[in-house]
Structure formats: C-alpha cells, structure tokens
C-alpha cells in the first residue's frame, strides 16, 4: 500500500516538474509569477513575514517618487507643516567627518517587537500574523501614545477631517496612522505603491518580499549583501533593512 502511494507521489512530482519546465522561458525565468494573492476567505499567515530591503546606494536624493506614490495610493495630501500626515518621507543623511551623503525613504519599520503595539491602551495598534504593523481605526481613540513610543517617528495623527477617501484605505480625523506596507495591495498579490514607483523611476532601490521564503529575492539578497536594520540595538527586529548605510 505504502509503495503504491510513493509511486504515485513520484509520478506526480515527475509530471509536475515537467510542467514547470514547460512554462519556463529560461532557467530562473517563468512565464508567470508564483506569488499570488491569498485566496478569498483565508487569513494572513504567520509563515509569511513581509519586509523590505532598501538599497540607499540606488536611492536618488532629488527623487520623491515613493512619497508621492504613497500619498496617491493611500489618499494623504502632501505634508506642508510638521504636524501633517506623513506615512513615508525622504531623509538626507550627511556624515560630518567625510561629507558622505546618503538619501533614503523612512517609514514604519514593521518591527517584530513593535513598541507601538506594547503601549496601545485599546489594542488598536496591532501586528498582523504576516508581520505588518497596523492601526485598527475602529478602536483607536487618538491618544498618540504609539507616536511617542515609536523610535522611528513613523506615525502621524490626523488632525483635519478627511474629505476625499480612497476606497481601499479608510482614513479619519482623530486617529493615528502610518505605513501599512500597502496591505490592500499585498493581499491582492501586488507590490506596495512605493516599490512600484521606485522601479518605474528607474532606481529599483526598494525590494519587497517575504523574509521567510527561501526562494524569494529578498531572502537571497539579505543573505548575500551587507545590510543593517535601523537602531538594531533596540532589539525590535524591524522588517525593513538598509544597504549602504
């Protein structure tokens, strides 16, 4: 009985690999992508951990494409004052001794141990099973404790009424919000808006993917290129890492 099962399994594997070889254009290149949207009705899985690898050597200091793409995708207006909403911002760094300049996008680092979640008194701030840190605005009372707790200053408070909503990203006055890793797009099997915009602008500075998937590009890159998490000393284990800092 067990022999028969094994034989069937072997036959199946043989046929499956032949099928995969058939749709491959060249070694390593397939006709379609294997990363698909999660089926309807299925919850986010803790087997996945979404993250980003940002290559600061590819990030252009004059370029603001990721920021404007995020604003357009998620419906937040361009920040004009320090208290305005900013889900992502461009940061310019300069090393004083050498004058070396670095440009990078800063946003929620999607920590594995998020301090914003620890301090939230209403459980509005939470980490989804797949590592995306979010604010449940149905529960947020706008106390802004999470904004104080975040070492990356990644969160913003909505001070003004929101008049023009995007259907995929509800936003409202009196709640705290931050980068969602474009959770609505990720659930559809797409890349976050900033990643797409960066690639479109020809920089390809942001690589997005599943940090737990040994076949994903980000998994391989993080293991072959020197990268660093911001303030790794805090032990928060952010999902976002940087190259060239």
């Amino acid at each position, binding site marked *: 009985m067990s022999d028969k099962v094994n034989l069937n399994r072997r036959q199946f594997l043989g046929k499956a690999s032949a099928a995969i070889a058939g749709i491959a254009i060249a070694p390593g290149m397939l006709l379609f992508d294997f990363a698909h949207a999660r089926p*309807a*009705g299925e*919850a986010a899985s803790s087997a996945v951990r979404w993250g980003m690898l940002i290559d600061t050597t590819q990030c252009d200091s004059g370029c603001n494409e990721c920021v404007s793409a995020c604003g357009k995708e998620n419906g937040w207006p361009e920040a004009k004052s320090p208290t305005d909403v900013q889900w992502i911002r461009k940061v310019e760094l300069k090393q004083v001794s050498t004058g070396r300049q670095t440009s990078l996008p800063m946003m929620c680092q999607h920590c594995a141990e998020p301090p914003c979640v620890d301090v939230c008194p209403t459980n509005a701030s939470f980490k989804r099973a797949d590592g995306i840190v979010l604010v449940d605005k*149905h529960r947020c009372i706008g106390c802004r404790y999470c904004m104080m707790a975040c070492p990356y200053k990644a969160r913003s408070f909505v001070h003004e*009424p929101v008049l023009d*909503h995007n259907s995929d990203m*509800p936003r409202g006055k009196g709640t705290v919000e931050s980068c969602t890793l474009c*959770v609505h797009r990720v659930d559809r099997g797409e890349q976050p808006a900033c990643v797409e915009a960066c690639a479109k602008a020809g920089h390809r500075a942001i690589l997005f993917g599943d940090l737990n998937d040994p076949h994903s590009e980000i998994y391989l890159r993080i293991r072959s290129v020197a990268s660093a998490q911001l303030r790794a000393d805090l032990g928060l284990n952010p999902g976002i890492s940087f190259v060239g800092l």
Partner: protein
Amino acid sequence: MNLLRAAVLLALLCMVNLTVAAVPMPKLDIGKGGQCVEDPKFMRKNHMKLIVHQRDETMRQGIRGGKYSLAECVNCHSSKVDNSVLGSSEHFCQECHEYAAVKIDCFECHSSKRKVIAEASK
C-alpha cells in the same frame, strides 16, 4: 377628574400616532439595486451587524473577499447620478438614516463613492 385626565392622555396618544403615520416612508435612489446579499427586509434591520463582524476579520486577520463588505454596499447602492450613497435626502444611506434618526459613522473614514469612479476621478 381621573377619568378626564385619562381621556386627555388618550387623545394625546392618538395625535402622536397620527403624526407617526403621517411621516412618509423614505423614497430611495437604490442605485444599481438587484439581488442583495440577503433578503432586503433582513438587511434593513441587520446590515450593520453583518459588516461589524466582517470589518474585524478583514482588518485584524486579513480575511478578504467575504460575502459582506461595506465597499460592496457602496458599489451597488451609490446613486447612478453622482456615484455616492450620501449627499441628499434621496441618497441610499443618508435618507434611511435620516428617517430612523441614526447617525452614520462609516463615512467619516470610509469612501462613500463607488470604487471605480472614485479612483478614475483622481
């Protein structure tokens, strides 16, 4: 004396009843309409309960594509004229909520416009 009081009270109650009956039922622009996810009678009473449960599953667990969704309510019921469920006393959500004197909180944060159009106009 008590009898008189009772009579006055009864008369007042009748007047109240009459005024209630005189308020016309809402005339709704039902948008696309058609087959709803549940029976309309059930929906009138329970629509808020269906999406309260769904919103937590979608938000916190990432379960999408379920039977009930606020975005789908808006997609079907927004006015064919301006693609919105709010705006005047004929718009689907607004009119019924005005009739029942219940404040809608959904659209403080959620879009009240049909999805495709909302994105195309940007």
